[in-house]
């Protein structure tokens, strides 16, 4: 199912449209087309955005490559292609593309007359420089680096045509190229030092990074010479807003209070209870855009004890009571997932039967696994070692409701004898703990367009760290047949064969009890009613403020 922002005001507008069509002019739906608005957009004004995600350490999403970077980079960087709400790949900086018969060579024709905001023209040499930048180990790219894993070389066919030569066919190439982590930046700007480029990346987008006051805000100003909106944009020419102040307010209650007070116009990472409260508040609306790629899941580290034993993994999953917690903590805003993939991924495969709450079976499994004795605190032990599960929690990535859910899992798995050690920590400490293999369970969001995310997350090659030091296969799944299936799925373009292969792969992952799926990666934005024309890009569901204007 494609990403489709469901907005309350839209529903209201449709319900009463017949009787009150004209009087509803002010209640404009938040959609990509801006349909329903009879007002003409207001130019100018400053929009304040408050992010609950971690502040990026680098504004160039080539470096590392996480979601906080994607959120802000969507405003000033653009990709070769994009995706529409139907899931089709549409033109952006590339107007057309052709794939060779063997799937090993792709030609992209670039849009004419596009200039980066430093004046450098967008041409084939620029794209070549960007691929080289992402693949250069010195850049320290993780997400972009993995996505371009099969690109062996690039070749300038003509100033406006760039050829990608692949080592193997890649059915996910176009989907990968829709992502902000593979945005095209000015080659002149990339030549500057890493620090300078991190502070002031230069792209072709509708806004320009003007200033970054660390620990406070990023100021983005309108790109007056903007000419390159994606094919599904609602208008042409420069953006309506003259400025965006991108603030960081990590505390969710403070963020919501700021929105309610009108101090900020849009917030992300909205808490479930505040989403419900916002539904009852006239001045606020919600934009719900679940992220594509993987679902939110707990990965069980099969690379070391205790989870190197499948019985112990299954016992943990059977002992974790998840559904009741989701029901209460998320106030109906999140639906339980039984899949490794997000519900917006058409090839997602669910198997609810594997994840039932069965403490009795869990106890039997642990007995069979040799954890037969219990210590004074009631935890199971084997050869004198307690059944401990170290669980580092990134407080930047897990919202408080999710952290509470983990506490509940800690409490329910304790009943069968697991000692889950929840360790809340900031993002950089969390990355460090993972890099040191200092975890048994972890919840790590991973956003990527398309089912190829499975290859990134569960191919044994992903146990080896990318240049950034991050490795994506946190469950440390190492199954040669799974590697082969995922490899094959990434090469075939036949739809039926591809989906059959991905189903096989997902079955292997789910039935091996490597993960405990929870729900889609939650991505709820709350905005004030006078913010018109905001939509989430269907690629990775980041908000794009190009068509947005302030009705005040």
């Amino acid at each position, binding site marked *: 199912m494609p990403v489709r922002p469901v907005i309350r005001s839209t529903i209201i507008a449709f319900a009463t449209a017949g009787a009150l069509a004209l009087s509803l002019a002010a209640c404009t739906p938040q959609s990509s087309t801006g349909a329903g608005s009879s007002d003409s957009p207001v130019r100018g004004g400053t929009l304040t955005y408050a992010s609950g995600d971690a502040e990026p350490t680098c504004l160039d999403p080539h470096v590392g490559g996480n979601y906080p970077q994607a959120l802000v980079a969507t405003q000033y960087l653009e990709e070769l292609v994009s995706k529409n709400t139907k899931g089709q790949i549409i033109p952006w900086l590339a107007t057309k593309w052709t794939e060779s018969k063997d799937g090993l060579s792709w030609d992209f024709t670039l849009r004419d007359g596009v200039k980066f905001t430093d004046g450098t023209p967008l041409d084939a040499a620029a794209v070549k420089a960007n691929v080289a930048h992402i693949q250069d180990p010195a850049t320290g790219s993780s997400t972009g680096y993995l996505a371009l894993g099969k690109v062996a070389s690039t070749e300038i066919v003509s100033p406006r045509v760039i050829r990608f030569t692949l080592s193997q066919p890649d059915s996910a190439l176009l989907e990968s190229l829709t992502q902000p982590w593979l945005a095209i930046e000015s080659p002149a700007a990339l030549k500057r030092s890493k620090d300078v480029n991190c502070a002031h990346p230069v792209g072709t987008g509708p806004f320009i990074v003007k200033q970054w006051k660390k620990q406070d805000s990023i100021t983005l100003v309108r790109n007056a010479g903007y000419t390159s909106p994606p094919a599904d944009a609602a208008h042409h020419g420069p953006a309506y807003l003259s400025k965006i102040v991108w603030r960081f307010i990590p505390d969710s209650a403070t963020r919501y209070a700021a929105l309610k007070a009108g101090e900020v116009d849009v917030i992300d990472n909205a808490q479930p209870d505040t989403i419900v409260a916002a539904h009852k508040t006239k001045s606020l609306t919600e934009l719900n855009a679940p992220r594509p790629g993987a679902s939110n899941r707990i990965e069980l580290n099969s690379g070391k004890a205790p989870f190197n034993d499948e019985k112990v993994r299954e016992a943990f999953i059977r002992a974790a009571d998840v559904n009741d917690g989701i029901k209460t903590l998320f106030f109906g805003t999140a639906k339980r997932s039984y899949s490794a993939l997000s519900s917006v991924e058409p090839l997602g495969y669910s198997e609810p039967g594997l994840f039932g709450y069965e403490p009795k079976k869990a106890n039997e499994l642990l007995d069979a696994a040799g954890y037969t004795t219990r210590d004074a605190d009631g935890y199971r032990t084997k050869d004198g070692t307690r059944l401990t599960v170290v669980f580092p929690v990134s407080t930047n990535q897990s919202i408080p409701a999710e952290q509470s859910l983990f*506490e509940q899992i800690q409490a*329910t798995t304790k009943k069968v004898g697991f000692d889950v050690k929840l360790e809340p920590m900031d993002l950089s400490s969390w990355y460090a703990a993972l890099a040191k293999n200092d975890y048994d369970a972890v919840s790590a969001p991973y956003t990527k367009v398309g089912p190829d995310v499975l290859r990134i997350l569960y191919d044994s090659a992903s146990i080896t760290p990318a240049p950034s030091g991050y490795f994506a296969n946190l469950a440390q799944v190492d199954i040669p047949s799974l590697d082969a299936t995922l490899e094959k799925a990434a090469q075939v373009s036949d739809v039926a064969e591809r989906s059959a292969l991905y189903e096989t792969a997902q079955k292997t992952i789910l039935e091996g009890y490597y993960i405990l799926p929870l729900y889609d990666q939650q991505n709820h934005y709350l905005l004030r009613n006078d913010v018109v024309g905001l939509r989430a890009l269907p690629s990775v569901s980041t908000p794009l403020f190009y068509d947005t204007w302030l009705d005040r």
Partner: protein
Amino acid sequence: MRRAASAGPRVALVVCALVVLWLLACAVAPGLVAPGDPLAIHPLQGFEPPSLAHWFGTDESGRDVFTRVVHGAGPSLLIGVAATAIGIVLGVALGTLAGLGPRWLDFGTSRLLEVLFAFPGLLLALLFIVIYGPGITTSTVAVGLATAPGYARIVRSQMLAVRGAPYIEAEVVLGRPPLWRFRRSILPNVAGTLFVLVTLGVGQSIVWASSLSYLGLGAKPPTAEWGAMLSAGRTYIDSAWWLTFFPGLVIVASAAAATVLGRTIQGRVRGS
């Protein structure tokens, strides 16, 4: 004035004494005051407002807030008392050195204390936690260390005052050895002040330790500890006020009760 026995202060004193007694009961035998398990979760009974079944309501995981507040008294008071003990012991040691030692030692110690005073206490505690990592033990030690300079300065001035008193001069004339003088005359005369400081300090330390837990630097969730409860409930301040109100109330009540008792004792000590 201090002898004016109007009804108001009496009532306040009795209330404070009751609060302290109740807290001590909670700390010593939480199971008697609230027999439930403070960590027991009931996911489907989350966010229930205060009722007869749950006097203080339930939290996001359906844990009974009253039970958690009662069971939180132990850790919270223990942190407060232990931190004060650390602060007082260090303060007495430094203050004695400065107050009774030779002039150069007094000079050195006093300058050291002034440097420490330049840092706000909580900042000093944060610095300590940054180096030794968060947790109940480190936050206790951190609060203790941060309060020590204040105690040291008061102890020093007390020592100086007692040292110059005529009865000590008399003992010097009588040829009593220094240690004997310290033990028999100086310490007992300073003890009254120390006792007042301890009572006042416990209240302050509870607030500080709760602040550190609130900041995620002390007790870890889901431990029943007042500061940690306040921190977890803060997210829901818009929709579930009881999650922050009751832990906040006991922090205020315990700190206020300890302070009022301390002041009363202070008044008595001065008056006698």
